[in-house]
């Protein structure tokens, strides 16, 4: 067998940290796709190699014009060094030395978008998403964005019909800050759907990242976030696929793939990127993963927009109070 010599282009910073802390770790190939390989370490953590222009937390992009399926098999062993991954059977090596580092968790140094602006972006994304093929959870878009009454029957695939009520109840519970109910409804979502990242997990991942960012921006204002996110992450370990559980674990910590991260940042921070362009890139993920995530994002942004509106209103009230006539001190 000819050894494939690959070069890493970008490494996630959490992977670099992991490799530094765990020299000469042995991994096994967990799953192989045309454009991605998952390496399993310590029984429940994954490292994702991809030859596409996106990168996951604990992941790396590599320079490889071939399909991974052609030279990597599930079960192959791989030795992980700080500067190189080497397949034990000699089928490939990945040189890590010249790769750039991607920050899996970062907060842009930009102004936040006001609530009104978030509402416009949500509308823009909803309109765009409504024009896409209604696969995965997308048949539920009109209902979750309140354009279709709950009493109307949901059309679409069996998965979306089955989960419609629970998904809608979850979004309502979040919007009314009924965290206990949201948590119990999340039990009905984790692991539901087709594929290695079931549809509802993609939907939930968007919520977890938005919650994490909101919490980081408003220290102490959302005390439930940490517990909510970590509970979902913990439950995912036993309720969904390993790949999806990893995705939810990262999302609970506010980490998601680079393309998804860019979109979320563009929705929340006032940068120049076009959210619809970025949504188009996210939409390309999987058969329905991208679309399911986008729907989760539109719903999660509704919660975020509402919290901002409340904060802005409080700010208005504060300003009014300050400008009200003050009593004249007695002489």
């Amino acid at each position, binding site marked *: 067998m000819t050894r494939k010599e690959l*070069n890493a*282009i970008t490494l996630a910073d959490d992977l670099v940290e992991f490799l530094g802390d765990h020299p000469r770790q042995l991994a096994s190939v*967990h*799953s192989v*796709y*045309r*454009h991605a390989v*998952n390496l399993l370490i310590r029984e429940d953590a994954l490292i994702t190699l*991809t*030859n*596409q*222009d996106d990168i996951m937390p604990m992941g790396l*992009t*590599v*320079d*490889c*014009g*071939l*399909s991974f*399926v052609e030279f990597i098999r*599930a079960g192959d062993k791989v030795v992980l060094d700080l500067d190189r991954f080497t397949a034990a059977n000699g089928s490939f090596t990945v040189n890590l030395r010249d790769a750039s580092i991607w920050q899996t968790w970062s907060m842009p140094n930009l102004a936040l978008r006001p609530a009104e602006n978030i509402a416009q972006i949500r509308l823009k994304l909803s309109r765009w998403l409504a024009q896409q093929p209604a*696969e*995965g959870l997308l048949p539920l878009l009109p209902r979750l964005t309140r354009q279709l009454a709950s009493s109307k029957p949901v059309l679409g695939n*069996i*998965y979306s019909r*089955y989960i419609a009520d629970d998904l809608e109840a979850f979004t309502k519970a979040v919007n009314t800050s009924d965290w206990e109910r949201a948590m119990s409804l999340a039990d*009905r*979502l*984790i*692991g*539901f*759907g*087709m*594929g*290695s*990242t*079931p549809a*509802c997990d993609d939907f939930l991942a968007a919520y977890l990242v938005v919650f994490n960012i909101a919490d980081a921006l408003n220290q102490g204002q959302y005390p439930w976030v940490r517990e909510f996110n970590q509970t979902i992450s913990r439950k995912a370990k*036993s*309720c*969904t*696929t*390993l*790949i*999806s*559980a990893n995705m939810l674990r990262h999302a609970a910590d506010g980490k998601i793939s680079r393309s998804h991260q860019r979109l979320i940042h563009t929705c929340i921070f006032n940068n*120049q990127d*076009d959210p619809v362009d970025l949504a188009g890139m996210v939409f390309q993920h*999987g*058969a*329905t*993963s991208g679309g399911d995530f986008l729907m989760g994002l539109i719903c999660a942004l509704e919660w975020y927009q509402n919290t901002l509106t409340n904060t802005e209103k409080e700010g208005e009230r504060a300003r009014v109070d300050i400008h009200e006539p003050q009593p004249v001190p007695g002489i």
Partner: protein
Amino acid sequence: MTLHTSIKRNAYYDSVTLMLLSRELQKLEGVEDVLVGMGTDLNLDLAKDLGLASGEFDGLTPNDLFIAAKIDEALISMKEIEDAFIQYLNKSAESDGEEDYQPPSLRSAVQALPGANMVLVSVPGQFAAAEVEEALDAGLHVMLFSDNVSVEDELRLKQKAVEKGLLMMGPDCGTAIINGKPLCFANVVRRGKIGVVGASGTGTQEVTVQVHKLGEGLSQVIGTGGRDLKEQIGGLMMIQGFESLISDPETALIVLISKPPAPSVAEKIYQIAKTSPKPVVIDFIGGDRAAIEAAGAIPCISLEDAAQKAVKVLRGQAYEDFTGFSLPEEQIDQIGEKEVAKLKSNQTELRALFTGGTLADEAMKLLGVHHAIYSNIPLSPEMAIENLPAGGGHICLDLGEDQFTRGRPHPMIDPQTRTEFFRSHVDEKTAVILVDVVLGFGSYQDPAGAVADSVREIRQRLSTQGKDVVVIASVCGTDLDSQDLNKSIKTLEAAGIIVLPSNAQAVRLTDLVMQRIKKGA
């Protein structure tokens, strides 16, 4: 109907595969219902609710794949369903999605397409130079669409390209047609014997479109980027492209298009033109006619004129400056008279709203002879839009300039910017609106429709004041473009817009109308 289940332990398939697989299995004769999924509790609940769960589900983990099907055993067996499953997976592995492969780097792109000898680079400006350098080192020609590349980088990269005998078109090169393939913003034109080197995007598009309309075709259309003919770059790519076309056996005649070059650069080009064995037509828009003639090349007065002369020379026909219209002059006069009659006495101003920079530049040069035009790309500093008198004046804008495209797409891609300018810049004093409609690759799917909608909206607004407005347009496109030239013209005409066959003619008609208005006033 009987229920059957198949389980694959620790099997991972991406959701694309599973979704398509479910559909394929559902289509099989004898299959009443089928569910494919990972063995998560909730998916198993769904299977139970659908009556598709069996005892075999016991012990299933989220990492196991299940196929559950209700089948008519007289028509199909579970073994056949499993075979169909395997067959589909094999077929999927064979096709292996090469069509959707998006290489993450230049190296993997070259690996994925062996034999490729050109690369189109479109990455944020600060990363572009490194990509181009790598491409040139790999012996690839480059078209660099990105802007925001420093002059120093441009010079260094072009010098390297010249050393290696390669093309480095750009930065900010938006138009090229190489071996018949339109790249970025370019029109679909027939192949032929006329080669073009252009330093301006829409200028090059206009010339290629006119050549096509006149029945001839293009061999190669090489872009250089707008800064190439400035002193600092020295016309390196114009010269490289020019020399390439001289030695190209498919090219019989060469057209050079640019804004007036730096004198030292112009001199180098004239030297090559003097020794060129092939006829050379030069449109250095508003450039030095005598110097061009002295170099033995053919000077032009407009982009359309360049195309006309190129075609005539190629056919061995006599040529002269084309200063008129395709329509008879009487008809043009009638149009002018009829249109001006629509206007009220206080309607005197021009609003020229261009998406193409070179088309706007050409318009100002042709109109500037008779009218004072304020612009964001003024012919002289005192005519900058900031100096527009408080009382108003004629305005010509290049809406594709950086100041209007920050954070939004170029108006050729997204008509919204021009729609907004129609609303903000056309008022009760506006007499004439002049626009370009650019078709082709990269352009909006229906630019004519967007202009027509804006014009209807403006007319509706003006009608409340008992007013109308004259709207003149040209369409830079061909019958082979996806937007369709004829359809676009009909769309514009249906909105009461006068459509001329070239930018130069549209500008000339605008000039005539404006002069009539001036005389009337």
